[in-house]
């Protein structure tokens, strides 16, 4: 029971919740029951069926509606006289500036991606508003408290970089199922159904093949009047047969690796397939694009089944056919969406056939969907526990005087008899570039790297700034904004294409750049150091940012330390996210420097960590997704020089 003092602090508090999903629903309910009377809640999402197993404020009839609004309505039903203000919006919107944040006594995050968390962290620091962070995945969860000057900020401990894979692993030498998924989703699916103008590594091989890229283009193009069945088999044979044969021709690659087997449709599926597909009973009555399904068409009902190569091949061809027959208009514009049944079927089938070729175990559609869609596994109970812990900390925060804040970890397996483990928060990291204004160091070849590279790969991706402003002394090199006049916009556009040393205010060895994001009210200095050479494999960006060090080990009883929502670099909001799969019992927060740096990953609106939870054997790394970035082609070219 809350004490008198606590109750009065609660009654007068104005609280902001960011996120009305799994944690959000539980949190809003508990806040309301605990006596909070003025709650604001931001969430940009709408309700989906898969939310209903845990986001209990929502009903089937609410699917498609705003989470923030429905959550509010549901809670008002048992606490009609409190004030809940919903915002169906993205917390990164400029409306939610520092002034907005300053009106709250405490901010409670129930987010699922790193990008938004960093953003909120910076605004809370700028506004000096206490922030309580949290995250859950399956049975694991944690709550952390961040108070400027007193504790670490959310970014004091660099979050682990997501796992990424060298392009060659994806295109030529996959060894895990996840590699096949990435290939199927980001290469094949993208090539066949996505933007034709996008560069695509599909035919890139580890050796310089004789095939010219023009020939490759022809292969994937659906020719006029070409029978879809024919087209499907042609694609099938090309990617699973021909491409493999070509790869095999390079002996070097396979010296120490198992050789893949080419697979041709004629061997797997004799012509009788046509008859099966012609079975009218299996065809769907409706032309509703969202219900089109190869599984339904072929009578494969159970998404948990692991299909044979033959079945996968049937699905592959049937899915391709259905895209052309029922969803032709979308072809050329499609991006993979985990809720697009046909896309999931296609990617599953393609990944499985490739896996079969390379001797990698096949997976069910259910599993493949989870990997390809970066699905976070989630249950109501963990969210409820975490919500309770958040409110306990929030009440402490409101009572300014008490400095007994805690971080609490919710464990799946007890550690020292504890399922709920409290830990003292750490002091701010003195070399945190976010809250301690420590300058960073950038090693770069100032004659080769352009300002554009710096902006995209460092400022946006690594530093998490969305609308940056870059200054060299008093000279503005670049900025983003709505109210810039044309000449300035042109000036900045020109600057982007210049190499650093040739900018109007040249950036060379010893230069100090100031980078700011006005909305986040976050500013940071970067010392530039010129370096000639960069390792193509380890430093593919040709730039290395460093300078913030891991805080010294202060933890007393920590055996495990978890963090959820470890999205990664903040490149593109629309692309898939990377996930660090970690063992349940021994999870460590890794610094971005120690994490393997290979290729880049991009961020999506969801990110997750999927742990080893199934009793069945689960490929640890199988839960990581990688987006190949656009520059991968360039990197390949560089490597070919050897």
């Amino acid at each position, binding site marked *: 029971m809350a004490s008198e003092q606590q109750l009065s602090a609660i009654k007068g508090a104005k609280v902001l919740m960011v996120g009305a999903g799994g944690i959000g629903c539980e949190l809003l309910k508990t806040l309301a029951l605990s006596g909070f009377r003025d709650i604001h809640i931001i969430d940009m999402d709408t309700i989906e069926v898969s939310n209903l197993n845990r986001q209990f404020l929502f009903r089937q009839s609410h699917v498609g509606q705003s989470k923030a609004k429905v959550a509010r309505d549901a809670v008002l039903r048992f606490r009609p006289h409190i004030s809940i203000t919903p915002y169906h919006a993205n917390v990164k919107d400029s409306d939610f500036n520092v002034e907005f944040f300053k009106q709250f006594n405490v901010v409670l995050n129930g987010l699922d991606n790193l990008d938004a968390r960093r953003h909120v962290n910076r605004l809370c620091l700028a506004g000096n508003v206490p922030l309580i962070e949290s995250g859950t995945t399956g049975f694991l969860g944690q709550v952390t408290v961040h108070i400027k000057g007193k504790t670490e900020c959310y970014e004091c401990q660099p979050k682990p970089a997501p796992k990424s894979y060298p392009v060659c692993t994806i295109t030529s030498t996959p060894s895990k199922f996840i590699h096949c998924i990435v290939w199927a989703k980001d290469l094949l699916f993208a090539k066949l159904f996505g933007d034709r103008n996008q560069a695509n590594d599909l035919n890139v091989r580890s050796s310089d093949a004789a095939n010219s890229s023009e020939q490759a283009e022809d292969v994937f193009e659906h020719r006029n009047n070409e029978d879809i069945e024919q087209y499907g088999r042609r694609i099938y044979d090309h990617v699973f047969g021909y491409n493999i044969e070509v790869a095999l021709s390079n002996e070097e690659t396979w010296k120490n690796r198992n050789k893949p087997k080419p697979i041709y449709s004629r061997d797997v599926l004799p012509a009788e397939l046509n008859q099966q597909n012609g079975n009218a009973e299996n065809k769907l009555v409706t032309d509703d694009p969202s219900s089109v399904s190869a599984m339904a068409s072929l009578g494969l009902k159970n998404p948990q089944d692991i299909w044979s190569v033959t079945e996968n091949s049937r699905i592959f061809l049937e899915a391709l056919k259905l895209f052309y027959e029922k969803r032709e208009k979308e072809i050329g514009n499609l991006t993979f969406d985990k809720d697009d049944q046909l896309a999931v079927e296609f990617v599953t089938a393609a990944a499985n056939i490739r896996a079969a070729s390379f001797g990698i175990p096949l997976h069910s559609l259910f599993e493949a969907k989870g990997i390809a869609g970066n699905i976070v596994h989630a249950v109501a109970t963990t969210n409820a526990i975490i*919500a309770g812990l958040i409110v306990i900390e929030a009440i402490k925060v409101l009572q300014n005087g008490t400095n007994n804040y805690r971080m609490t970890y919710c464990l799946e397996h007890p550690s020292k008899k504890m399922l709920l483990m409290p830990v003292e928060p750490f002091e701010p990291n003195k070399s945190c570039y976010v809250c301690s204004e420590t300058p960073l160091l950038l090693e770069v070849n100032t004659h080769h790297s352009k300002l554009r590279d710096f902006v995209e790969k460092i400022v946006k991706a690594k530093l998490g700034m969305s609308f940056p402003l870059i200054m060299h002394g008093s000279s503005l090199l670049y900025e983003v904004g709505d109210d810039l006049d044309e000449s300035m916009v042109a000036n900045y556009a020109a600057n982007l294409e210049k190499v650093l040393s040739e900018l109007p205010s040249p950036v060379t060895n010893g230069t100090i750049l100031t980078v700011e994001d006005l909305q986040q009210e976050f500013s940071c200095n970067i010392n530039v150091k010129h370096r000639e050479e960069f390792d193509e494999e380890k430093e593919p960006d040709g730039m290395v940012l460093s300078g913030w060090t891991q805080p010294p080990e202060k933890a007393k009883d920590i055996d495990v330390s978890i963090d959820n929502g470890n999205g990664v670099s903040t490149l593109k909001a629309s692309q898939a996210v990377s996930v660090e799969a970690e063992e349940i019992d021994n999870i460590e927060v890794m610094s971005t420097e120690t994490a393997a740096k290979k290729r880049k990953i991009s961020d999506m609106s969801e990110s997750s960590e999927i742990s080893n939870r199934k009793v069945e054997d689960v490929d640890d790394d199988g839960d990581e997704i990688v987006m190949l970035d656009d520059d991968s082609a360039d990197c390949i070219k560089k490597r070919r020089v050897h």
Partner: protein
Amino acid sequence: MDGEELTEQETALYDRQIRVWGADAQRRLSKSHVLVSGLKGTVAEFCKNIVLAGVGSLTLIDDRPVTEDALTANFLIPPDENLYSGKTLADICCDSLKEFNPMVRVSVEKGDFSNFDGDFFEKFDVVVVSCCSLTAKKTINEKCRKLSKRVAFYTVDCRDSCGELFVDLKNYTYSKKKLDETIECQIQYPSFEEAIAVPWKSLPRRMSKLYFAMRVIERFEEAEGHTPGQTSIEDLPKILKLRKEVCEAQSVNESLIPDSLLERLVAGTSEFPPVCAIIGGILGQEVIKAISGKGDPLKNFFLFDAVDGKGVIEDISNPNNGS
């Protein structure tokens, strides 16, 4: 156990949790029957969790009328007297719980269930009791244990900002995968009566004090014939006296149970909603584990105190009993 596949509706709804515990476990959940009594805040939380998880059925027992007091930590009760007057706690919670998952059968059972016979309890796979006397706990526990079928038995009680869970799975065997092999595990649980009979002296010194404090209050309420809600700060002097007696009988120092702790537990007549969520969540997880046969169940007490923030598992069983 299997046979029927999950329906398409179930697969879509339960997708995220199937990814946690698998389709088999989900199937088992959908065939399980849970009995719950004592619908205060924590149990309301538990019910929400178990309904969302997709059990086959949930039966509620609580004939107490809805009062304004009940509203404080129970979000299943609409605060409209017109709606709740004349109804029992079970009735009103039943209506709300049904909404969370139309695939779960939620119903009400009336009467003093500590008088029901074994046949009644045999219908269930899980029995959760709360807000009842020590005698009732023991009685129901025994009835469950007597059945040849394994009926998982739990008690849950939250006072002030503390919570205690007790688990009795009788003889529990389950398999789990360690590295590449599947190993069979077996755990023997003592009954509630056996557990609380374990001499305090034999328990580890660093144990959660909350356990002892709860036992004293439990004893007090039993002796006075109080229902859990009836004890208040006025009873503190008597309780402190009882503490002295009990500690002497157990040959332990009275300082084992701090005054302040007892005072908190006795003064806090309403539950603290964050603790309800936490305990209701832990209990939910345990019940799901027991039904699905997946995951290490806790043995056999779980104790939480918001003041130190530790959620601790204490194994209170007598090694001599083979438990």
